[in-house]
């Protein structure tokens, strides 16, 4: 691509690319435009081969004048992938297999027909839905941070220009640094990484510092097990995040920006690297960008598998080549950060929103959302919910809308029990919270938190004590060991929870858990320790009867804690087929085929549940 050294050249480029993209989407060029999802989820289900085969067939059948194919970022609806979408019809094919490609070319591209059996079927109405926007999962969504994902090819700079990239930076360069900070303050944007600190205020602190060296750091160390919006944004529209970082750099007076991305996200890193290289080549990263005095360079550093590095001071230590342990604050990073220089750390979703705000204006962003939380939030909706995936909704959407309208409710007719938000630092919300409007403040008031946006739905089959134990195991693994209350307190809490789940709990264990939780909360240096006990405190508060059942009656009501349950074969339902006995790994089941009902020897049984999942007649019961 030719160099882009002036605003005029950039303007022309954007105009040209926009009209190209518009033609593709609207079909004005007389061609069908097929896009294939290239996110991690769909790639693991062969979307790469689907793309290659589409390209090969178009070439083989000389259809270049009738259709084009492109790879795009994540559609968000990962449980239904891989996706192939057809423009201009806005027709969405889901769960596409490599073997379907021939039909797509023949029936859709050549004959112009819609392939009914590849359409999404609404689980409630059983109706087929052709257009993406008509699917319930997408209806209540509004894409700001995910803007561009699933529309443009993340590996082609021109597509990003066509979708409005660098309009925000151009606008910022016409403003003073203070005006840019004011614009972000006015938008009401709060950090999307967890704590929800106003982004503009963070920038103001850094702008106020007089120093030749300042840094912008993008926190892409998405550690919450169950959240993947940052990965999808980096994979789907890396240029949008780079632009956000450049705007931040201009606003505070930084010349260098560092991306700190998890090593677990190889595709995101590859696309980010490519985008940075291309922007350097055209002159949009480097010295005197667009002929101004603003110079900026981007660098990438990889995480190495430590959850605590999502904490901003631990992240800085990691970039500095040290163990990722947090530092005491103050001094805050905006005063003394990376290499002791003023630094701001913004999360991926925050920076993606920044470029949107500068392009579309602060008022437009501030008109979305609630009083205290503006704009949208991306949630990674997962667990026991029909529609699993990434959803971006305006702040103020209720949990009920999120789980039942967008998420399509709980699978297999089971009952909703709880939703865990905020990951290992958050808490669970229950039936009584379903109609609360979600924003930073309401979630905290109800005993959980926004966190980075993980939202795991649990049904009646999930044991809340087991869930608390799961999160505590995670924290014990990930505690950096600096503060004793976190290092030792979490281990003691895990021991107690393990004891309870093994059926050996006593009532006094619950008091001890609470005491340890409080001590860890108030005596740890960083947020990891301060919030480590939240999952325990919140499940104890919302499900006291479940804890009591474990410690008093030594029963697990959800039937999860193996030590407290046993399997029995109901002799009246048993068809004496021996299937259970043949599948038993420890030969604990005996009986006579066709004559005597089968029976489980409890002293041998290892409670693996294979007999139950193999029985066709529901004769094996969990008690």
């Amino acid at each position: 691509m030719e160099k882009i050294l002036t605003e005029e050249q950039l303007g022309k480029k954007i105009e040209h690319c926009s009209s190209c993209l518009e033609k593709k989407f609207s079909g004005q060029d007389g061609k069908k435009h097929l896009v294939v999802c290239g996110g991690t989820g769909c790639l693991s289900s062969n979307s790469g081969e689907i793309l290659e085969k589409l390209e090969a067939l178009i070439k083989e059948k000389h259809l270049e004048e009738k259709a084009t194919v492109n790879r795009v970022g994540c559609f968000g609806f990962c449980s239904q992938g891989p996706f192939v979408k057809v423009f201009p019809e806005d027709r969405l094919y889901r769960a596409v297999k490599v073997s379907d490609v021939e039909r797509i070319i023949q029936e859709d591209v050549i004959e112009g027909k819609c392939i009914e059996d590849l359409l999404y079927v609404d689980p409630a109405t059983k109706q087929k839905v052709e257009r993406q926007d008509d699917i319930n999962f997408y209806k209540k969504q509004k894409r700001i941070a995910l803007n561009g994902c699933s529309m443009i090819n993340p590996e082609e700079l021109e597509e990003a220009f066509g979708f409005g990239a660098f309009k925000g930076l151009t606008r910022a360069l016409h403003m003073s640094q203070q005006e840019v900070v004011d614009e972000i303050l006015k938008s009401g944007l709060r950090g999307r990484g967890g704590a929800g600190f106003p982004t503009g205020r963070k920038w103001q602190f850094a702008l106020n510092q007089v120093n030749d060296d300042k840094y912008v750091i993008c926190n892409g160390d998405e550690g919450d097990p169950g959240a993947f919006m940052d990965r999808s944004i980096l994979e789907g529209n890396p240029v949008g995040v780079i632009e956000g970082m450049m705007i931040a750099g201009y606003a505070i007076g930084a010349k260098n920006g560092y991306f700190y991305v998890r090593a677990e996200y190889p595709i995101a890193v590859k696309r980010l690297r490519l985008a940075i290289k291309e922007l350097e080549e055209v002159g949009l990263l480097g010295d005197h960008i667009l002929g101004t005095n603003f110079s900026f360079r981007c660098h990438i550093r990889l995480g190495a598998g430590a959850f605590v590095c999502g904490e901003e001071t631990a992240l800085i230590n990691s970039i500095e080549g040290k163990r990722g342990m947090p530092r005491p604050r103050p001094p805050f990073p905006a005063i003394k950060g990376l290499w002791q220089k003023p630094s701001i750390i913004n999360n991926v979703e925050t920076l993606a929103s920044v470029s949107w705000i500068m392009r579309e204006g602060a008022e437009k962003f501030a008109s979305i959302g609630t009083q205290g939380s503006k704009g949208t939030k991306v949630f990674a909706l997962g667990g026991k919910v029909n529609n699993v995936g990434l959803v971006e909704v305006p702040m103020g959407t209720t949990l009920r809308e999120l789980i039942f309208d967008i998420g399509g409710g709980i699978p297999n007719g089971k009952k909703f029990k709880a939703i865990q938000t905020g990951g290992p630092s958050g808490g669970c919300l229950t039936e009584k919270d379903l109609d609360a409007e979600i924003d930073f403040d309401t979630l905290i008031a109800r005993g959980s938190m926004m966190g980075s946006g993980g939202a795991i739905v649990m049904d009646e089959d999930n044991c809340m004590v087991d869930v608390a134990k799961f999160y505590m195991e995670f924290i014990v693994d990930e505690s950096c060991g600096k503060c004793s209350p976190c290092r030792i307190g979490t281990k003691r809490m895990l021991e107690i929870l393990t004891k309870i789940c093994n059926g050996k709990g006593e009532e006094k264990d619950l008091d001890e858990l609470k005491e340890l939780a409080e001590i860890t909360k108030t005596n740890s240096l960083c947020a990891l320790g301060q919030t480590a006990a939240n999952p325990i405190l919140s499940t104890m508060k919302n499900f006291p009867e479940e804890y009591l059942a474990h410690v008093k009656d030594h029963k697990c009501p959800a039937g999860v804690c193996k030590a407290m349950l046993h399997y029995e074969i109901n002799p009246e339902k048993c068809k004496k087929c021996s299937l259970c006995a043949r599948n038993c790994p420890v030969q604990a089941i005996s009986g006579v085929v066709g004559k005597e009902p089968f029976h489980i020897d409890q002293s041998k049984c290892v409670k693996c549940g294979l007999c139950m999942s193999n029985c066709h007649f529901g004769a094996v019961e969990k008690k």
Partner: protein
Amino acid sequence: MAKLQSHAVKLITEIVERYKDEETPLMMILEAIQSEYGYIPLEVQELVSKLTGIPVAEIYGVVTFYSFFSLTPKGKYVIGVCLGTACYVKGSQSVMDKFSEVLKIKPGETTEDGLFTLDALRCIGACGIAPAISINGKVYPKMEAKKVISLVEEYRALAAKEAQ
């Protein structure tokens, strides 16, 4: 102390040289060594210390802090079972147990033949297709315990074919 072979010395020296213009490059150096040399034993740490001037105690501290760095060689195929929340509630523990049973190793260990390493991962961001596992970076969606044996066989066959 075992002595490093000359090709290892050459590789490590080249890696350290690659990042000489970066400020505080230790993490980048270790990441490159982990991926190109496969592991970071003490003798490699000593060489890095000699080349960079960073005390070996500090390097050892960093290597043992991050779960991506390994002091021992990993297997030819590294199987990572995601135990993140979304995968866990969909039953990834039973997938992990099955791998453990089939490979006769615990998470974090490597099989005696050096073919497989079994790792527990904390969320690979593939929550939409839970439970997910990854083998040398390739992600397998919607994994089930009953698919484990055939998958292990597939990789054993692949290794046998490559050995020929």
